[in-house]
């Protein structure tokens, strides 16, 4: 391989990797949010993302709803649906057992239900996309070419991350969200309305996923199976330490770039396995993930 080609590959691989990584990052942010407040890895996040996408698709393409209405409507539906699930189902699950595994299995149940529902509509068979919300004209970054939409995706991921970071670190609600995750009993004694916080977290997380779905349907196309991308989001979250919001975004980039560089310099066949090798490497070197705090010995 000559030098120019390597240079081109590197540039394009990294730039495109960051864009796809942004998608992973957005989903990873949704996952990390929920995990921080309830120690539950939400297995339905991918399907929430998928269902939100189909909701928008239905409004935009099949009902010809104008964009300015369809987008907020989708976000509202996502918020309400997720909050309702948290309120109705998970409240009962945690009241009944309290074991996080049970909550995880319940989210798994949700993922099947959502997939089944979307398939019942009959829209799920063909890969689809709706018109890009941002123009797809090309932009050059060095020798790498991407589209305006790609830039928008990238910036959105950063903005969402910044928003969530500030929310968690600097606001009262955000502090309550963390408190609920750390010690729900004490949080109740402080007067925190657990239900509301949980619903808010789930709702917000669904909104973030919905934004991701709106932005990237032209990028990865929608199918009833698109929720499978959540695996990459989990990978991103792990690499980033699983509780860190900036970690999730950086993790997304790492995974996206790793996929491309492995594809370019090793083999296209190895693209699928790259994220998992990345996870293993990161965890072996830094068992708590890139941004996870030091695994402190519990003080007794």
């Amino acid at each position, binding site marked *: 391989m000559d030098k120019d080609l390597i240079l081109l590959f590197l540039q394009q691989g990294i730039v495109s990797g960051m864009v796809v990584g942004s998608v992973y990052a957005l989903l990873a942010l949704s996952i990390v949010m929920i995990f921080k407040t309830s120690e539950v890895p939400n297995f339905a996040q991918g399907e929430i993302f998928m269902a939100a996408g189909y909701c928008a698709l239905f409004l935009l393409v099949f009902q010809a709803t104008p964009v300015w209405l369809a987008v907020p409507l989708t976000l509202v539906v996502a918020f309400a649906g997720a909050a309702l699930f948290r309120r109705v189902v998970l409240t009962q699950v945690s009241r009944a057992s309290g074991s996080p595994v049970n909550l995880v299995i319940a989210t798994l149940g949700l993922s099947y239900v959502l997939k089944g529902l979307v398939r019942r509509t009959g829209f799920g068979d063909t890969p689809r996309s709706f018109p890009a919300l941002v123009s797809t004209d090309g932009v050059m970054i060095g020798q790498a070419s991407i589209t305006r939409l790609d830039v928008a995706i990238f910036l959105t991921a950063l903005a969402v991350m910044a928003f969530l970071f500030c929310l968690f670190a600097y606001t*009262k609600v955000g*502090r*309550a969200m*963390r*408190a609920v995750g*750390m*010690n729900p*009993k*004490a*949080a*109740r*004694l*402080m*007067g*925190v*309305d*657990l239900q509301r916080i949980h619903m808010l977290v789930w709702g917000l997380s669904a909104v973030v996923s919905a934004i991701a779905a709106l932005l990237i349907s032209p990028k990865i196309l929608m199918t009833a199976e698109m929720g499978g991308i959540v695996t990459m989001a989990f990978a991103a979250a792990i690499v980033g330490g699983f509780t860190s919001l900036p970690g999730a975004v950086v993790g997304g980039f790492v995974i996206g770039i790793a996929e491309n560089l492995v594809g370019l310099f090793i083999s296209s066949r190895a693209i699928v396995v790259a994220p998992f090798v990345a996870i293993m490497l990161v965890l072996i070197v830094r068992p708590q993930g890139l941004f996870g705090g030091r695994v*402190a010995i*519990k*003080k007794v």
Partner: protein
Amino acid sequence: MLEIRGISASYGRIQAIAGVTLSVPDGAVVALLGANGAGKTTTLNTISRLVPVTAGSILFEGRPIERASSHAVVRAGISQVPEGREVFRDMSVRENLEMGAYGRSDRAGIRQDIDRAFDYFPILKERLQQKAGTLSGGEQQMLVIARALMARPRLLLLDEPSLGLSPVLVEKIFAIIRRLNADGLGILLVEQNASVALGASSYAYILENGEVAVEGRSADLRHDDSVRRTYIG
């Protein structure tokens, strides 16, 4: 200000308290004593609505709260210092205190109350940015008490506040209790050290196997030999 009438509560099949009736008059310190496992903590937790009541009623300032949610109870003005040092482990001392003021939005007042907490427990000021989970046992206990006060409650439920504190600090805690009480705060005090508790309170209840076995003015109980022998030991 607090009226509890015949409440019962159970954990699954185990009945922890059965028909407990007690009251905390306005601005009084009332002690709740009893052996280990008598149901003292459970009683406090029914008031804070962490444990559901199966029978009976709880009135706070005349309003029934036995069906309210736990956050509504806190809003209504009842704070609890739970047993077992329930701090937010990964939050700093400051954040823990701020969580105590969750229901409030008067920034100036909160800042003032944080300063007051440091007044009570200067060590907390030195540990301000330390994660609460790494504090020493006694430091955590101080933090939990200070945190409960951050809500500016009208009624404070104290579950063994002196537990794990050095003798000097125990003295100080009771001094603080007296001071708070003098400012009009009602206090329901659960305490193992019966003589101290009776000394600090005006009225006391003694629980046995989930029921009120004895009640009376603290001063009387303190000098009642049979009570001493049977319940205080």
